């Protein structure tokens, strides 16, 4: 089913840290690449996107 043009869609992908479970917004291209460590702004943990506790895409 096609979404009507007038229905607003979100545009931010959120990631949850595997250590502290904190959430922050990440560019989906950074997740798709997979080879660059994400950096948690809450606990400073660095980890690959595949190791995220959760990824919430719009």
């Amino acid at each position: 089913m096609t979404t009507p043009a007038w229905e607003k869609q979100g545009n931010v992908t959120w990631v949850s840290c595997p250590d502290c479970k904190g959430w922050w917004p990440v560019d989906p291209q950074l997740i798709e690449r997979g080879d660059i460590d994400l950096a948690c702004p809450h606990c400073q943990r660095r980890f690959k996107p595949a190791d995220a506790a959760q990824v919430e895409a719009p």
Partner: protein
Amino acid sequence: MSHARKANSYHFMSGLRSFLDAAGGAVWRCNEPLSVVQEITALQHALSKAGRYPVIHVERPRLADGSTSSMGVVTNLCASRTMLARLLGIDDHRHAASAFARLSGAGIDPVRVERRDAPVQEIVSEGKDANLLRLPALRQHSMDVGAYLTAGHCTTFDPETGEDNTSIQRCWVRGERLTSYFPYASSHNARNVAKFWARGEACPVVIWIGHHPAVVVGSQAKLGYPESHWKAAGGLAGEAIRLVPSITHGDKLMVPADAEIVVEGWIPPNRLEADGPFAEYPGYVGVQVATPVLEVSAVTHRRDALYHDFGGGLEDHLVPDNMAMEGKLYSLVKPVAPTLANVHVPFSGRRFHAYLQFRNPPRGEVRDALAAALAYRRVRTVVAVDEDIDLFDDREIMWALATRVQWHRDAMRIDGLTHGNLDPSLPPGAQTVSKMGIDATLPPARAPNLPKPFAPVNEVGRNALEMAETLLKGCDMSQWPAS
């Protein structure tokens, strides 16, 4: 190797400290040991809410580890349009658009000085002695990933022409000699980086921090590519910028001799790391992205350097760039719309809105002007109004929209145009954007001496108004409801 050197005893008019000395009551000197983690930025938020914009000089900032920095922090330097306009020799901030267009177009060539005459190279730390963690860089907002250089004027050069470019870009301090480096994809510095990388070479870069606000604002003039900012900055500051060869790159990358701090280094090819989140100019958090990094080769500074910070997303961050945008828009629109009288890029619209004001435009000219203004990448909505509307009062703009616009007739939508970065409203994956021009001017009179064919505005007589204002001058209004 670290070494100190005594500079010649002279005073350059355009340094940050000469400005602070002369600014008197416009500077709030805070002796409290405020933390670089959010506390200084919180002051800016509180002042913004109160509608007051002093320069803030925190003399003894507390670093994240609890120690006291030997460098003071200066912020809110550019939050006041009134003060910036005065520093640029503009009689009224409301005249910034035409003045910016004129002054940055005229320009004054920079002059070269020797290192002995460059206060910014009084202290030089190279190699392993260079340490960014000694700078009192702020971690401004709760979701910022770390401390950022926010007022770093990043200068690179075009390897084909040698022409330099300067732009403010955020740099996350990731270690003693490593920062992220985030030039927008469409920026001139990004073009220079890409050209070096295409050759398989690291891009040389210098970041200068802290200067007289007239130089800070002047260096943000919107120019072509490749085109050096030194001349335009001199034009706006009213005197030549004094430049000295950088320690790492020599004559290829000059730095302002009267800056407070310079970070020098290289952007290694094709190395990308995560940067952000960071509180950005639209008033929202910019998402974590992949950006180049900057490997630091040297840090130089004045013996008693001051660290300059821009408050992300606050007036301090937006006002100088918006004033420069006003100059750019004036230059773009005036040639196609001679009746253009003024331009304003309001803080309320961040960098996405612009207001144009016209003096009796003939039919068609307002739409020509809207099309020209919408071509400017950053602007997404442009509103055109008449001379009776105060461009600097959003309530009057809203009144014009409410009372002078029929959408089928006066709204002009253009889809598929380029856009400014960090627009939080963009749909996922969008490469282009929809823009809107709105003609909120009144219809023209049939002849110059006839009234416009529109209802007249409610008015009281001038004498009655002056009497009312005189009467109110003596009143204590502190107990009266504000809304």
